[in-house]
Every structure is written in C-alpha cells, then in structure tokens.
C-alpha cells in the first residue's frame, strides 16, 4: 500500500479522502490555495503545502503546482477528488511520467470518455442502449436538421467535449433548431474550447439513475447498486438517493449488469459511475460515464457499508478487488442532501460570506461531510457546496424523515449567506417526491409553485 498520498483537491472531498487515508495508516498531503489556509482545516492532513493563489487555475488546477508538491512531499500517489484535475487525461499521464500513481482510470480511458462522441460509440459497441441520435459529431446545421427529423423531436444538443450539463440545448421542434444549434456550438467553443456538438432524442419526464462500479487493474469488476439523482436544477444535483426507488428490481438488475459488462469491455479501472436516463416504461438509456469519485458516493457507502475511497486506494495500489459481487449487498435506503451556499429564492445564486453559526446535525445514521465550521469564510472562488448531509434508515420513508430532522437541526448562516436547506426541506415534504413518482422536472415545478405562492 502507498505510504503517502497527495490529495489534489479542497473542501469536503479533500477532508473525506484524508479521513480514509488516516484510517488506512497512509500519510496524507494536503494542498491549499491562499484563501484555504486555515489550520483547523489543515488538521485533517499529515502535512500541507501552499500551492498557489485563490484562482483554481493557478492552484488546484495547476498541474505543475500539484506535481511539484507531490514530488516535494515524497507522495507515491495523487487522489484527485472530483472536479479540478480528476478527469484530465493530461494530468493522469503527467503523473505517470513523474512516477506518481494517479488514483483513477488509465489516461487512455479518460481521453475516450472525455469525448462524448467516442464514449457513445464505445458504449453502443458494448451493447448499451443509447437514445436515438448521432454517434459522430454533427458537422453542419443541415446535417443536424436531417438527423433531428430522423430521431424525432424534442431533441437535445450537447457538446462533444462537455459533461455535467453545461451548454446543453433542448429543441422542441424544427423551428428552434437553427438558433439552438448556433447557441450550443458557441457555448461549446467558449466553455470547452471545442465546438463539436452532437444530438440525441430528448426524454421528457425521465429519471436520472446511475450505477456505481468498481474495477481493479486485473479486470475484475463489480457494481455497488444504483443511485437516483433526479432532483436536479439545470443538471446540478441537489438530492441523491439509493437504491433508485420505484423501479422494478429487474430494471435495476439489468442496469447494474449492463454497466459492469460495459465497463469491463472498455478496460475500466477504479471507481466510476454509469449514468442512465430511465423513461416512464422503465426503459433505460446510457448518458455518460463519470470517471471519478462522485459527490454523491456516500449514498452508496451508506447502503453497502463499503468505503469507496478505500477501494480506490487499494485498486490503485494494484490490489485485486477483495469484494466479490456476492459479498456486496445493499441494505435499507440512504439520501444525500447538498447544503450549498446558494439563495433558492434568487434562483440559486451563489452567496459567499463568513459562517457566524455552524451547528451541524448529529445522531444515528446521520453523516456529515464538510470542511465548514463556525468562522469559516465561504469563498466566492470555489463551488458553493458547504456540507453534505447523508441519512440512512431501513426504509426510504424513514431515511427521508431522518433527513428532514437533520436539516431542521442544522444551523448554518452568516451575513449574506443563504443556503439550500429550506428548499431541500420543501423537496423532502413534496408528496410526489415522497411517493418517488418524481422525475428530473421536479425542481422546476417546486420552484414555480414557490414563486407563485410568493414563499
């Protein structure tokens, strides 16, 4: 096993990875930008290196800074967390050149999956069901027109280099195609520096369901069940839960099996997530693969008892999976709520400021993953996630009751700081959500209802 690992991230995920390192007897090296210099945070690491100023591109996303820090500290491996450099094939390759183990898939896999067009082709070849649409990038508007007509409206236009919902355009009918095509192309160029786009059938009223997989370097792989992430706001997840509710066991089993098979087909290594859209008839369609640990991984940990970061470290160090598929059983239900520093009443605009008050919830089967504390300044430089609250219970209903209790006792605030807590509680109280009859349109409906009632 590694004796020292550098954690190339910040916030709750850096703390979370450091915890598992401590539990495994691995020294952890933290890195921090100037505004993240806080001894109370840095206590989670065995050592810490100041790698740059506030802007992420000069600190957490600076490959030279991270690599140099790892070499200085004598780390043998780098855990990239999520976001930042976590799915950057160049970074993974430079790690290898510098003699450092990148904790994640092989660089070639990251390259393939980062190109959505390639990923779709690979998954189609592996036999995963795709939504009707293009495999190759759509080169011209004329081509898009032909294809859209063939696929049938509504369609969605996406960036080939994209991911995470950025720059997507939904097109209701032929009249809207030309402007949407131009907007999507322009956005793709601006955000990803790559103007290639593709299109596929848009599924309205679908659920977002994903399968967690885990593969070792020897090619052994398992799944760890499903998560439903349909509670999204513009493709940003707010609440995740597992196992995915209200679907037939056969549907879940089929998705799980297909994900493992497809991951094996492309030689995937490490932890990864296969995202699917599931329609009202429980037909499922491949969306994308997230080649990293995900924000919502604690949901899976809660229902399986497996420490996913520990498994990542073990397989990255070359150990074959100790877990067999038969040994992984999911038990009960878990929910995760993302407490973001955002104002739900102003369309979730990020709010920054110092937390005067920070009293996290506690109690049974209530997990808090956070880097925040009283006196902590929420920085405008980074994403708005303040804390993740995860509850577990034998049933989904009890897990939701527990979550509402936990959110009710969570006191977090400060001048100018608003959080998503009131909105999260509104979702949890929503009858449709309670019945698990919701889909990805839920948040918009609740927002609209809130605006209408003026609350």
């Amino acid at each position: 096993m590694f004796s020292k690992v550098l954690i190339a991230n910040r916030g709750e995920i850096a703390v979370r990875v450091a915890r598992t390192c401590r539990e495994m007897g691995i020294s952890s090296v933290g890195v921090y930008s100037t505004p993240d210099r806080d001894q109370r945070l840095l206590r989670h690491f065995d050592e810490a290196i100041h790698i740059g100023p506030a802007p992420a591109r000069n600190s957490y996303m600076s490959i030279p800074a991270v690599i140099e820090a790892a070499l200085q500290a004598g780390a043998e491996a780098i855990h990239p967390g999520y976001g930042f450099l976590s799915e950057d094939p160049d970074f993974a390759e430079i790690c290898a050149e510098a003699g450092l183990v990148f904790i994640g898939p092989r660089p070639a896999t990251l390259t393939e999956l980062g190109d959505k067009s390639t990923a779709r082709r690979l998954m189609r070849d592996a036999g995963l069901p795709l939504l009707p649409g293009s495999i190759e990038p759509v080169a011209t508007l004329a081509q898009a027109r032909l294809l859209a007509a063939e696929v049938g409206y509504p369609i969605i236009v996406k960036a080939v280099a994209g991911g995470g919902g950025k720059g997507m355009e939904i097109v209701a009918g032929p009249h809207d195609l030309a402007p949407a095509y131009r907007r999507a192309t322009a956005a793709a160029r601006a955000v990803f520096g790559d103007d290639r786009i593709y299109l596929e059938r848009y599924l309205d009223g679908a659920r977002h369901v994903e399968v967690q997989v885990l593969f070792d370097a020897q090619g052994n792989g398992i799944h760890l069940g499903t998560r439903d992430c349909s509670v999204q706001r513009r493709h940003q997840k707010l609440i995740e839960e597992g196992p995915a509710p209200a679907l037939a066991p056969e549907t879940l089993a089929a998705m799980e099996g297909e994900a493992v098979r497809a991951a094996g087909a492309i030689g995937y290594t490490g932890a990864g997530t296969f995202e699917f859209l599931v329609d009202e008839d429980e037909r499922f369609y491949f969306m994308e693969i997230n080649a990293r640990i995900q924000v919502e991984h604690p949901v899976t940990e809660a229902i399986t008892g497996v420490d996913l970061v520990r498994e990542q470290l073990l397989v990255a160090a070359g150990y074959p999976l100790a877990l067999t598929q038969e040994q992984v059983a999911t038990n009960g239900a878990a929910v995760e709520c993302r407490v973001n520093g955002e104002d739900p009443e102003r369309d979730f605009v990020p709010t920054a400021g110092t937390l005067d008050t920070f009293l996290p919830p506690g109690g049974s089967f209530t997990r808090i993953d956070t880097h925040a504390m009283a006196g902590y300044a929420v920085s405008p430089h980074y994403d708005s996630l303040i804390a993740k609250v995860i509850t577990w219970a034998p049933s989904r209903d009890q897990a939701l009751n527990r979550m509402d209790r936990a959110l009710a006792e969570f006191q977090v605030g400060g001048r100018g700081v608003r959080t998503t807590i009131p909105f999260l509680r509104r979702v949890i109280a929503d009858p449709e959500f309670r019945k698990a009859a919701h889909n990805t349109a839920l948040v918009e409906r609740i927002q609209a209802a809130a605006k209408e009632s003026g609350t």
Partner: protein
Amino acid sequence: MADNQSADLAELREHARALATGLAGPLKRVRVRSGDLVVEVEWQPAGGGPAAGAAPAPGPAAVAAGEVADEGAGEGLLVTSPMVGTFYRSPEPGAAPFVDVGDTVKPGQAVAIVEAMKLLNPIVCEHHGVVAAILVDNGKPVEFGQPLLRVVPESPDERV
C-alpha cells in the same frame, strides 16, 4: 455573572484563536483582556527599530513552512516564490550564484530560479535594494508564497 464572564472570555479566546488562524503575515501577539473585552492583534514588525518605511510581511507567507517564515522576519522586503518548486541560487550547477548577501539589486534583475516540472523560472526582483538575506538553501523545495530573499530597499539615487 461569573459564569457568563468566563463564557465571554472563552468566546473572546476563540475569537482570538480564529483571528490568529485567519490573518495573513506573521503575528507577533494576540492579546485578550477579560475586563473590558479587548482583543489586540499585533503583527511582526518587518524591521527591528522604528523604521517608518518598513513594510509588513506580505500576505501569502508560508504557514506550513514555519521555520522558514520565521527567518523572513527582519528589515526589508521579501521576495517570495510564485510557485511550488525547487529553489536554485545559480543558473546552472557549478555556476556563480545570481546574487549574494550584500549585493545591490535592481528591478527586473534575476536573483534566483525556481524549477517546476523541469522548467526553470527566473525569480525577478521588483525593487532597488541590497540583498539582506537568502532564506532558502540551494536545491531545497519551496512552496507558493514562501519567502526566498530579503531585500532592504534603497532609492536608486543613493546608488548613483
């Protein structure tokens, strides 16, 4: 009120601790008075005497490398590392160092190199002055913001 006052003091102490954690630059003293609820924070002076022109240590001083940051205390301005890397005093092994203590430097002059990912990044002085101390040994790792040299400013006129 005795209990409450003790609670107040505790709050103030937490406050002082938070201040000490959150403030940039080497702190000299954080004082807490219980009687009138006074919190005083004093920074390390850049110079020993009452030199009016002495600047405080800049914000991004390296906290994790405390032993080095301490050496940065003294009269003058600090030249800090703009990146994580390895500090070199000379352009190549065996060559003469860029500068030595006592040397006069001018804006734009290379005073050291920080190597990161095999790229040699010249560290350039921004002031006229005299090198008062070289704070890192040749070949040692440095982090972002770590003080490398201390330069006592001098007006260019004086040097003419």
